[in-house]
């Protein structure tokens, strides 16, 4: 464990190592407390334990997409079009998509235990699924070929369009369910009576996942910078090769 922390990673600093260590400690506590210390729920039984990873990952996924939108807007508004914003937006979206996949997976496992079904057309669930697909599209747009500036501009606009899209999707799904049939779905948290330890574990989960999120985004963002620099190093060599053509 300590070797993992101390080994010098390419994109690590003192700060990220402290952040990583904190994240590991909090996550260990969440796992142990969530699986062992906390009691089972009166209504949900053991399945409430899934909540300690499901709720924080959903929260982080939404946080990630908000940060992607903010960074994208900053890139567009900023006069210098600083590529740091673009890399942050991309890193945050990647981590967000991962957490959203975790959310959907753990959510459907929980749903199978609680509702007896893997999937319900609950507005919140449906919106989350659409959000997931939308950001898969965003990441696909980031991979389109073109210059770095082109990539940044395209993806920043895509991120802001997603912000337009999400409320419309959510709103339409909400009235779609409410108009046509009564709420068939249990309110996922409304029926649960959480005691102090359960609440504290959930809260620790949110803190731990947030730490993990920032650790991942920092490293991912720096890795993107490294790859960009390597690519532009390739450019220097390519320019030299290209000029050599003129010589003969």
């Amino acid at each position, binding site marked *: 464990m300590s070797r993992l922390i101390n080994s010098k990673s390419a994109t690590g600093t003192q700060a990220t190592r402290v952040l990583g260590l904190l994240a590991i400690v909090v996550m260990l506590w969440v796992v142990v407390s969530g699986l062992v210390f906390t009691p089972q729920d009166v209504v949900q039984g053991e399945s409430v334990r899934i909540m300690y990873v499901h709720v924080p990952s959903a929260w982080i996924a939404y946080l990630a997409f908000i940060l992607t939108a903010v960074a994208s807007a900053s890139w567009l508004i900023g006069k210098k079009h600083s590529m740091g914003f673009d890399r942050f937006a991309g890193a945050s979206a990647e981590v967000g998509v991962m957490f959203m996949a975790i959310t959907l997976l753990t959510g459907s496992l929980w749903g199978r235990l609680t509702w007896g079904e893997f999937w319900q057309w609950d507005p919140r669930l449906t919106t989350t699924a659409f959000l997931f697909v939308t950001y898969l599209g965003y990441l696909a747009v980031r991979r389109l*070929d073109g*210059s770095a*500036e*082109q990539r940044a501009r395209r993806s920043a606009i895509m991120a802001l369009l997603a912000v337009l899209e999400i409320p419309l999707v959510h709103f339409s799904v909400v009235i779609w369910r409410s108009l046509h049939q009564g709420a068939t779905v249990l309110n996922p948290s409304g029926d649960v009576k959480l005691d102090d330890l359960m609440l504290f574990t959930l809260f620790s989960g949110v803190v731990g996942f947030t730490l993990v999120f920032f650790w991942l985004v920092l490293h991912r963002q720096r890795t993107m910078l490294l790859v960009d620099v390597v*690519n532009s190093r390739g*450019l220097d060599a*390519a*320019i030299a090769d*290209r*000029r*050599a*053509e*003129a*010589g003969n």
Partner: protein
Amino acid sequence: MSEVISFVDTVIVYDNFPAVAGATFSVASGEIVLLQGPNGAGKTTLLRACAGLLPIARGKATVLGVDLKSDRATVRSQVGMLGHSNGLYQDLTVAENIGFWSRLVGAGNDDIAQAMRLMGLSERLSEVKVSNLSAGQRRRCALATLIVRRARLWLLDEPHAGLDADGRDELDKTLRSARDAGATVVFASHEIERAKALATRSFKVEGGVVGEA
């Protein structure tokens, strides 16, 4: 206002490849400049960058007083560019294609008639769909849309390609009269003899580098 184009150590990256690897040259107002060089030398990329279509990766680039690094978009309305492709709609007739452009730029019917006359497009041809035209006729149609646009800087990639002898003479005449009307012309060509006669100056482009010819 004498300098229309001014490039200093300009690098232009297209598809992750430095097609132009450090170009330094300048073009003055009223010149007809020939870019000569083998295929893949970077002529097309250079022309596209002058039109504000490609980002400048390194160095300096100014066209018509506009810094291309910070503001590529404003230069576009003042240049006319004709690349390898003609930018025509295959399902529309010659007259409809030229009419579309004249409407876009607010030109009148006289302008359309004049452009078609200049490019030797007869009444009969004007009602023919572009997909039924010969390569040379399409070229002339594309040039006519350019005339309608009345650009200050003309950027032409292989403008003589696909034209017959008469068409080439017509084109040379058109370019000269455009120059007399105050336009500057930069064009790339393989036909050195004809091009040299037309050009007031020429540059050699090779390996993404521009030099005096």
